[in-house]
């Protein structure tokens, strides 16, 4: 009973973050701000969902696998958003990374 309540609360909260992230993805004006919105979905949204499912996990190994899934999603999301942000950043000599390329291949369609 308690488990189910925890799951419901946590997953609903997580869905709330997912909703916020999606809304930001659609409504924000440019790539960096959209990436910022997406991080909400990845970190807190998925985290809360995983937290809720942890309450339902029957064995410890399942719980560990869920946490691993969250960790991997965080890793992939971090790398992806860093790379996308680098490509979407306007050329800015003052703040440019020392090893940044002068120009990259065509960026993703906005």
């Amino acid at each position, binding site marked *: 009973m308690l488990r189910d309540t925890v799951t419901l609360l946590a997953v609903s909260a997580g869905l709330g973050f997912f909703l916020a992230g999606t809304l930001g993805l659609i409504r924000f004006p440019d790539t960096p701000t959209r990436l910022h919105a997406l991080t909400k979905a990845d970190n807190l949204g998925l985290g809360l969902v995983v937290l809720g499912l942890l309450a339902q996990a029957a064995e410890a190994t399942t719980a560990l696998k869920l946490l691993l899934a969250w960790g*991997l999603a965080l*890793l*992939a999301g*971090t*790398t992806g958003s*860093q*790379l996308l942000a*680098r490509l979407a950043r306007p050329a800015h000599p003052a703040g440019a*990374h020392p*090893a*940044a*390329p002068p120009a*990259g*291949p*065509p960026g*993703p*369609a906005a």
Partner: protein
Amino acid sequence: MTGALLDLLLAGAALGAAAWSVAAADDRRALLAFLGYGLLLALAWTRLGAVDVALTEAAIGALSAVLLLGAVARLPAGPAPGAPPPPGPVRRAVAGILCATVSLALMAAILLLPSPAPSLARPAAEGLPALGLGNPVTAVLIGYRALDTLLEKVVLLLALVGVWSLAPDAAWGGRPWAGRPWAGRPWHGAAPDGSLVLLARLLPPIGILLGIHLVWVGAEAPGGTFQGGTVLAAMLLLAAMAGLVELPRTGSRGLRWLLAAGPAVFFAVGLAGYALAGSFLAYPETVAKPLILLIEFALTPSLAVLLALLLAGPAEPPRGAR
């Protein structure tokens, strides 16, 4: 009730993604919709209880995403010069009518299939103890229909030779990606101490473990050679994209031994079946499971390298030699 609602949502989303992919304004949008469609299909397979297929769909979807995104990035944004004009309304209408007819016929045929459908699930399950396996999908792949799996591995090899045949004559036997501006360094000028390289250092150990685990657990639970091999191929490609590992020379003897080893072991076990159990690809009951595991673990590295090379493409002349 909730199950049916979920299925309806999933089916609707998949169809929507497919329709968006067909109707998209340009290639990039169509491709992204197609990749989303692939992931939704993987969920659909899970709902149907075919977890092995869902794993394969997700894994192959990821690899084909790399291939397709790379290809789309090299295409010009608009129509190519000299390309034929896009089809007019009449041709589109005819194509639409043909596709609709085929779809309706398929729908009618599927809805009118006998139910409960005749299936071989029970004979397949009854044969499992003789093979020492717990996963009927693996039993079908490496037991009952092993010849099909073996021939499909040969198909992959032939496809790889075909991809290699697109190399320029002078570059035959060279390395893939050798002609890119960033050869030997991280892709597209990513920073050597940046996030891509960090990912390529952190993820492959986990990925390799996961891949081997998928192959091992495939005997009892969903998993198997192809799923594990795909994960391993993805790790190899990630390391190569980060410049941490150089893809092997396509002419190197060691690489060719590695590629041929998997199918060769499969053939050897198959032909040994004549001596051991009286028929090609037959497994004597006492050693069935060890033989099957031998085949799977011999196939996995071959498959992983093969898939990675298939995605990497043909050999290119080295940058300075252009």
